């Protein structure tokens, strides 16, 4: 069990010292929009104390003081409220320790948001994944003497309130990488290696437990609900509007517009598990903001990464995560020119882990794996031309769920702003002809 800082203290003097310490952990950009109403009213000291007692198995544990505030600002997270807590607590032994936690809770207020998200069941899913799946994946890694940590440690899962309590990774010096810059080669490979282990262990778990992960069937595109489709389609149209402004790109704009009529079906086909492919529990939303990085204090080099946020975890092809990640979260040069190298890096760990765990089904060769990726290549187009713009958006004033999903003037303006981003325009401009030449802009593919 990885633990928060435990400063073992025995005197009142030290207690005082503690109380004077400022909140020292580095935090991501936030704070100007601190609204108390974002913090759920049931999130009290007693509430936290109850779970800390369970986690530490110490019925006499007592919270002495705590500090609570929102963890993220607008545009950083579209699925839930994150609250950061620091608590000084005393154990039954008399020792005093400091714990840092993130509490993740679902939206409570807006009816439109609630209704739109409801069929995706993201909060229950994430709780299930943290409670039932990730610990099993960790077990599988231990089986082959792999002690890497891929996910955040969960302290508690509260199904009644749809809340998750995590260790605050900031304290172990994990921070969010720069969302606007994209990951470099080193970081990207670190993420991919962890992703590969997650995928591989999930494939093995599913095999050993009779398809237990196959019921995860509600990714962004799925065969049960189309609630997010208007949002994606409008983003597609916003892309088309922007592309039309570029000289000699009318043909592409036209094709993108025509694509709308079959867009959701093409997306769903990406997510349909293909029985002849290797399938895994995918992350479902793997981009820069769902990765946390620990940098070396002196050299500034990345040392470790953790993957977070499993609201959209879905059973399917690893292509779902790879096309999404490689086309939204990398530095420009890598996005454009070096994806094959990254896929090879991912694959080596993926195949190796499957092999070590004695996966019984066929482990595809690298070439066969590339073939499976190519079959799902529509998602590469989607990630670059529909999703990237949202993720690199710098004008965060209107950046919320409604701005994506609705089609009023504010929402349309928001989307058009996203596609005005110079970086996004540059990348789309370079990749559109390539997607077109591979037939990925055709209505019937």
């Amino acid at each position, binding site marked *: 069990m990885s633990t928060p800082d435990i400063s073992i203290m025995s005197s009142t003097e030290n207690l005082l010292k503690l109380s004077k310490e400022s909140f020292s952990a580095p935090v991501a950009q936030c704070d100007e929009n601190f609204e108390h109403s974002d913090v759920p009213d049931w999130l009290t000291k007693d509430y936290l104390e109850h779970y800390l007692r369970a986690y530490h198995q110490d019925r006499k544990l007592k919270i002495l003081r705590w500090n609570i505030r929102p963890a993220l600002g607008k545009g950083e997270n579209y699925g839930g409220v994150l609250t950061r807590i620091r608590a000084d607590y005393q154990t039954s032994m008399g020792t005093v320790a400091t714990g840092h936690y993130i509490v993740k809770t679902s939206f409570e207020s807006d009816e439109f948001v609630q209704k739109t998200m409801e069929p995706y069941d993201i909060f229950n899913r994430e709780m299930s994944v943290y409670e039932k799946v990730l610990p099993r994946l960790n077990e599988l890694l231990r089986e082959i003497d792999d002690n890497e940590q891929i996910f955040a440690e969960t302290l508690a899962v509260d199904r009644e309130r749809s809340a998750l309590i995590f260790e605050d990774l900031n304290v172990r010096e994990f921070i969010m990488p720069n969302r606007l810059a994209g990951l470099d080669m080193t970081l990207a490979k670190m993420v991919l290696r962890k992703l590969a282990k997650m995928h591989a262990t999930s494939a093995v778990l599913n095999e050993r437990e009779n398809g237990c992960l196959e019921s995860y069937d509600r990714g962004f595109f799925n065969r049960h609900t189309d609630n997010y489709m208007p949002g994606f389609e409008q983003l597609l149209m916003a892309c088309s509007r922007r592309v039309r402004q570029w000289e000699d790109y009318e043909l592409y704009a036209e094709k993108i517009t025509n694509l709308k009529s079959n867009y959701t079906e093409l997306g769903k086909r990406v997510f349909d598990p293909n029985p002849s492919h290797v399938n895994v529990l995918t992350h479902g939303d793997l981009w820069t903001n769902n990765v946390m990085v620990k940098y070396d204090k002196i050299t500034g080099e990345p040392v470790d990464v953790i993957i977070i946020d499993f609201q959209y975890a879905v059973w399917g092809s690893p292509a779902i995560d790879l096309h999404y990640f490689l086309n939204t979260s990398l530095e420009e040069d890598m996005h454009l020119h070096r994806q*094959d*190298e990254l*896929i*090879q890096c991912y*694959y080596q760990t993926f195949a190796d882990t499957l092999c070590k765990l004695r996966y019984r089904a066929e482990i595809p*060769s*690298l*070439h*066969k*794996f*590339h*073939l499976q990726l*190519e*079959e799902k*290549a*529509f998602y590469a187009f989607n990630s670059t031309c529909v999703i990237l713009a949202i993720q690199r958006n710098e004008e965060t004033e209107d950046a919320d769920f409604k701005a994506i999903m609705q089609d009023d003037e504010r929402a349309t303006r928001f989307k058009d702003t996203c596609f005005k981003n110079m970086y996004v325009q540059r990348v789309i401009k370079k990749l559109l002809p*390539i997607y077109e*030449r*591979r*037939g*990925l802009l*055709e209505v*019937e*593919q």
Partner: protein
Amino acid sequence: MKDTQFHTAPLWLTTEYLEPVLRKYKKDEGLIITKLVIKPATAKGDNYASVMTRIGVDFILSTKEAEHASYIVKTSHESDPFTAGIMSKYDIYKTEMLMYERILPKLTELLKEIGDGDKLFADTIHVDYEHSAIIFEDLARLNFVIPDRLAGMNEAQAMITLKKLAKMHATAAVLDERMPGVLTKLQRGIFNRTTKGFAPFFEGVFEACADFAVECPALGAYYKNKLMKLKSHVMEYGTRSFDAYNGDFLTLTHGDMWTNNVMLRYGNGSDGQLQIKDILLIDFQFSAWTSPALDLHYFFHTSLTLDFKLHREDELVQYYHGFLAETLRQLNYEGHIPSLHEFCVQMELHRFYAVASSIACQALLINDQTDEADFNTLMGSDDRSYKFRHLLYKNKRTQESAIALLPYFDRKGLLDVSD
């Protein structure tokens, strides 16, 4: 230099043999041959599988008109048992005869059906099963030329070749629907499930490439090791790349789609500039019923410059696919016309053939050291053969190609041994 080709011209090729043939072709029973000149038609390094003989014939028709005509006679290596032995396993003579006699003329008819007067192939004069010979019109006399095999095709040549190839593929797929069982019998491509006769060539040249790689700073021991491990699997993986997979669009491939099997005719355009007026495909010895992706991989890697291979493959595939789909539609093809992306997936599926074409076939076909360039040397296991195959990798373009493409193939997992 002693003209060593001369003695391989077939002995039965005489006036007595040709007169009845010409009488039938010209539809003139009174035709008389007055003069027959026989010469080799190709030089060393142009053709390994057959003997090509050019015949110049002077004759008088029954109308007393005197005419001159020139034909190409294509025959097997009957006098060379080594070559004949291997080639017979590939059935190349039977295949080509069947193509010229029964299949190609029908493909031309199908195009006429949709108002396309495009000529894809040379006219057949005569097919002789007994002598394993085909006589066809001498395209060289009609001002057709072969593009420079050492330099690689330029854009215009490449595009028009792909257009013709697409039409061949489309018409063949439709012909199979109308005449089932004939085309599908052709299963002896360069890789096939009946023989591994070319193994000494493929394995030998892969080894030569490996030896080049280890001496090349840009590549190194990593690639030598990979290629040496791959060497003993090349024939199997090559054969697998010729298999039909679920969902593949299938048709009759050309089977040996490279520069020397394309003939171009130039003429003046409306602007007075020299432009390509026509192209014809020749040499159908390795035609097989399988994926057209194989023709494309082979063509790209034996006949085009590096720039095309590295940066413009998808553009060429798109261009080809446009004509394939359009022609299939016009002919009311009843099968599934692959979408462009489906075809791209098919290209990916069969991509090991690009590796074999690039590393081995290309090295042979763009070789400029032709003194030793014959089939025996290519396939032998003695020192002379070993040296010749290693000589192939002294060619600058071949080296550049390996340096640029080996890493690309490696990243795609195509140099991996997986079982």
